[in-house]
């Protein structure tokens, strides 16, 4: 193991800021893509529900017209 202590590990031989910043930003960018995908899925569920409600309303109206 190249580091003697946990503090050594954080400091990264003086390059800690660069190393940790790059890992943090990479995580944020990837997480944003995953989050956007999850949100899109949720909004699709809502849209599908609206579409089904509309179809049911239309079917009901058609039935009452034909009676």
């Amino acid at each position, binding site marked *: 193991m190249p580091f003697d202590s946990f503090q050594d590990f954080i400091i990264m031989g003086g390059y800690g800021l660069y190393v940790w910043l*790059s*890992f943090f930003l990479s995580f944020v960018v990837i997480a944003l893509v*995953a989050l956007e995908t999850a949100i899109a899925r949720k909004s699709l569920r809502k849209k599908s529900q609206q579409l089904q409600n509309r179809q049911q309303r239309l079917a009901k109206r058609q039935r009452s017209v034909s009676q």
Partner: protein
Amino acid sequence: MWRWLHPYAKPEATYRLVEKLLPWFAALTFISLAVGVIWGLAFAPADYQQGDSYRIIFLHVPAAIFSMGAYAGMAIMGGIALIWQIKTAEWSIPAIAPVGAALTVVALLTGAIWGKPMWGTWWVWDARLTSELILLFLYIGVMALYFAFDDARTGAKAAAILSLVGVINLPIIHYSVEWWNTLHQGATITKFERPSIATSMLIPLLICLAGFLFLTISLVMMRLKNEILRHELGRPWAQQELEKN
């Protein structure tokens, strides 16, 4: 082979396949990235020249490689969409492009952050950096074109053509460090000779590479599922699928 492939032209069949594979790829992503990143950050030895700053390589190189790999995949899908008019291939374009763009952003960001302590600058207009930036613009262009038309299939065709034209940028990125005198260093592992990196650093790098490959596939699969559902919203199977969870 065609008999095996043909059923996947049906969107629901593709959806079911992706649904079955996704958990495995997601698990592989978490395992390989956890092992690779922890190994690279904490257990790989420091570089004799760059000290610990080189540890950025464990993100930078995989992100850069798969920013190009994702583009190649998107272009192949574009070709399939144009030649065989397979809808799921068309829909995979907007599934791949944002993931590829994110990987490109990661490669550019980590590169800039690595460049500051090693080169003394965040950015130079060197051939490698500039061509990778063009890759980001190509991704953005493909996404913009895809959604720019009222008719979705016209948009898909336009985006497919742009993705195929943009393939020319991939060899330019790869060979930029040989063709031009760049500040960016030459290839470390993507060449025919022995990798110019110590084995103790190469192994965690290869694990990170696998991790990014699985990550790319997982994210694309998640987005492709959405894209299929978006187009099949009126169909009962899609409605049932969305009600499930």
